[in-house]
């Protein structure tokens, strides 16, 4: 008892208290833009050095400043690409993925300055420029990602209306069971329209439909148009179809936003891998021909 009371316990308590009381801000605002400032200082220093230091015969990757900028650039790229490992490797210790993301975004943006200065504004059709272009593709897709992360979550939350993905699918399944029995009194042609809604894959739109939310071949919309509210049985089916349409819209909205939150990664990650491959070729060829 006495031994437990002294030592480690207290510091965890004060750290926990600090956590429970800590500010609640996004990765962009993390620690009052700490990484933005670091990135600005880094880029500012690079610009100043480029402007003030006399490079002979002309600014390019081969001067000592060019090598320095290139080394900083390649180390940054390798470190930035480790975010994917950090995210999945849940080790102990006081790291925070939010801080990593924050640093990833701002230091990644600073590469625009560092990488461009490293080129000395010399571009042509070779592996060096390929590496530069790939880096810019990675950075631009990253900016797309930051914009997606900053704007889409609120829509995702609003669309969810407190339902989980499973609950949305369950709600649809419940509507389908009711539709199945409600369609019994309908005539053959109309009943077939209703049955078509039940058998249609809700993801039938493919990748395009998923990203745009446009499903022109939606059987539910078609059945809704064809089945009126004439008598009690029709009215009931119509009301159920209307509910089904709404439920489908929610599920499709959910899928659309989730897809938009991820689609940029399909460019960002492969471009990163290609960038690292091009970088290796760039570095080896530079030293080979040195």
């Amino acid at each position: 008892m006495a031994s437990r009371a002294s030592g480690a316990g207290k510091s965890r308590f004060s750290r926990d208290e600090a956590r429970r009381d800590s500010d609640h801000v996004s990765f962009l605002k993390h620690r009052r833009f700490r990484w933005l400032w670091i990135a600005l200082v880094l880029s500012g220093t690079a610009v100043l050095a480029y402007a003030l230091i006399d490079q002979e015969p002309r600014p390019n990757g081969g001067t000592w400043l060019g090598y320095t900028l290139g080394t900083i650039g390649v180390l940054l790229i390798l470190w930035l690409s480790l975010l994917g490992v950090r995210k999945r490797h849940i080790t102990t210790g006081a790291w925070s993925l939010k801080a990593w993301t924050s640093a990833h975004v701002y230091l990644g943006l600073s590469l625009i300055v560092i990488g461009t200065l490293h080129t000395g504004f010399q571009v042509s059709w070779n592996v060096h420029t390929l590496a530069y272009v790939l880096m810019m593709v990675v950075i631009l897709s990253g900016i797309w990602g930051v914009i997606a992360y900053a704007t889409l979550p609120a829509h995702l939350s609003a669309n969810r209306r407190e339902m989980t993905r499973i609950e949305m699918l369950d709600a649809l399944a419940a509507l389908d069971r009711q539709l199945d029995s409600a369609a019994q009194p309908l005539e053959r042609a109309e009943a077939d329209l209703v049955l078509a809604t039940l058998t249609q894959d809700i993801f039938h739109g493919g990748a395009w439909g998923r990203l745009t939310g446009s499903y022109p071949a939606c059987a539910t919309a078609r059945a809704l148009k064809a089945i009126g509210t004439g008598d009690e049985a029709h009215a009931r089916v119509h009301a159920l179809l209307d509910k089904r349409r709404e439920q489908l819209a929610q599920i499709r909205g959910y899928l659309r936003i989730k897809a938009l939150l991820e689609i940029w990664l399909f460019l960002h990650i492969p471009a990163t891998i290609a960038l690292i491959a091009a970088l290796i070729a760039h570095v080896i060829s530079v030293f080979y021909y040195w």
Partner: protein
Amino acid sequence: MSDLYKVAIIGSGPAGLSAAARAAAIGMSHVLIEKTDHLSDTIFKYQKGKHVMATPANLVLRSDLDFDAGKREAILGTWDEQIATGRVNVKLNAEVTKVEGAKGNFAIHLRSGEVVAAEAIVLAIGTQGNPNRLRCPGADSPMIQYQLDDPGEYFDEHITVIGSGDAGIENALGLAADPAQRNVVTILNRSADFARAKAANVALLEEAEREGRIFVRRETTPAEVRDGELLLDTRDGQEAIPCQRIIARTGSQPPRGFVEAMGIEFSSSEPGAFPKLSPVFETTTPGIHVIGALAGYPLIKHCMNQGYDVIEFLNGNADLKPADEPILAEKFNHLPGNRNVDEWLGVFGDNIGILADLSTLQLRELMLDSTAHAYEPGDVIFRRNEPGSSMFAIAEGSVAVEVSPHDPSITVPIEQGSIFGEVGLISGRRRGATVRAAEPVIALELSRTAALKLLATSPGAARAVTAISIERQLLQMFGSGLTREDVAPLVASAEVMQARAGQVIVTEGADDKDIFIIRRGSMIVEKEIGGKPVFLSYLPAGSYFGEMAVIDGSARTATVKAAIKSEVIRLPGDGFLALLDKNPALREKALADMAGRRATNAFIESRKGDFTGAVDLYSETAAFLVDNGIGEATDVLLIDEKLCIGCDNCEKACADSHDGLSRLDREAGRSYAHLHVPTSCRHCEHPHCMADCPPNAIHRGPDGEVFIDETCIGCGNCQRNCPYGVIRMDAKPPKKPSLLQWMLFGAGPGPGEAPYGWRKKEAAKQQMPEAKLAIKCDMCSGIDGGPACVRACPTGAAIRVSPDKFLTFTKLTEDVE
């Protein structure tokens, strides 16, 4: 009338079975009476294949029956076989309705009309109770059953379910689930809505009703059970419906009434109280003995040992030492003084005031859940701000309480026989002061469960603890200048009040003049501004309120109501004023507190004029959070949905830092204004999950986390008791291939919780135990860096907060992006 047995054992659970087996083994004439058609009904009703645990591991089993951890079927099979070969005289389908007579000749009346005569009775009926029977003509019809084991075994029947609770609804849904069974299922509800059932069950029932799978009859009661039909009392008169089977699920009657009818006294009127027992399990009615869960021992091993012991006692074996003797000896052997178990029990029982009323049996049981400590002078017993819900009692020596956080030399003594640490037990909050031994101390640390059981069984102890805790709370709150004598008149006039969630304690504009201290739970302060209640602040346990009206004589300036089920101490305003007059330092402190609260109120009111939106957002968000249990939380995960990208990295991190199972469900749960309360443990001040844990496996750890230790038996009580649904039952999954193997070679399921199928297959391959145990968030206790869910959030959406820090205007209106 049959022969006169030496002993009749009522109830064939582990306790009754073990008693009967012992009686058979020593040749004592006996009869084992069981109301159902099989032995050990409670375990019989466990789900098929359930793994039954044998805790506590250090308790030896003393029984003629074997018992070890294993599957339900294996355990029941062993017992059935051993009862048969041991020639135990069993009477099945025998429900006892009444017991008459006295020691030496009891007459036990059965429902069938038969009467069994016995010299002594052992009651081992557990705490399940009997289902409530229908109260209408024909209630004894064979069509009626009170339980439904397998809804799949009935076909082509008109079945009526009576009862509108979860059990009834679930039975009805089960019977109607498969249309191929062609059952016509009707459910009767006395009232118009299903208020007692879970919302999810009601939704399923209403859906089944819309689809015509179940007939739901509201405001309908059974009038008469006839052959093949049921007469109903409906709102529009009587109506008969065809009916071949009735499933009555109208709740059950706790066994207390039945037990008290035999003249057996309970230790108090509290619902959690147990019968008063002698050291040989004899009740206040001579000749009737109580063992097992009904005596307060819910674990199977305890029950079986008691069954053995009680028969030995009845057989005149007075020297039998209880089976827990070696455990107690081990508990005491580090204490100085070389005393044996009986001597130590004497020291604790005689010296500690609150244990005075306990029998030796109760004292022994209390010891099992408690720890005996010996301290040298100067040893720290606990420190300020440590979590701790145990209560200490001083058997020898005295302690010093460091009342000032800044100066350890200012102390208040607590003398031999008294208690300390009770604030943690009552409020669930951290230790308020550091306590050291002042001289050599022998102290007993009562775990929360043991202490609560003591308070429920011993009214004297409960009164003593209440008085001491009020006095200490006053002294602690108002600083070190006060003495016990100063507050004595206030303590004498104090009154403890229970408040249910939402109950108003102080009404704005009223002119009552009492002052209140929050003893447990928490309160919210609201003020009517522009015709709407606006949330002003959150008051945790240990705060006081109502002082403004007392000090300046004004009307109440705000409404104070309970955020959750709470307890407040009401003190008369006059007494408080008298105390202030005598104590200028206290007066200043009270005035300073008052000024602080005034300033908060004025700030919110001034904001209301300029930024109505912000104040509304603050007020409504705070109210939403309190509605979702944040008021009773100590550390809760919240997700800002303006930042959450739905990557579920929080869940994955949780699984990867805890044996591969996630203890949180990000998507589930309620949201308001983009603030989402996921299904995840709140680490409540008074954890509901702890309420009924047979092996006492749920504790509050050193960092304030509520966790389940390895003695969990997988009974699922905590899961049912948690109002927030954050406890899951699952088997420990097998180890996954490493992250590197996954990244490079795609080995295993990757980061996060493995899919159920993978876990099941891999566990079978590695022959891992399948026992499902309760798992829940442990706040990443022992993991350097703190909660993984927060560390692993890439955007800062996941935060863990405490209500006293988060329910403030600044925090709730912060611009996060």
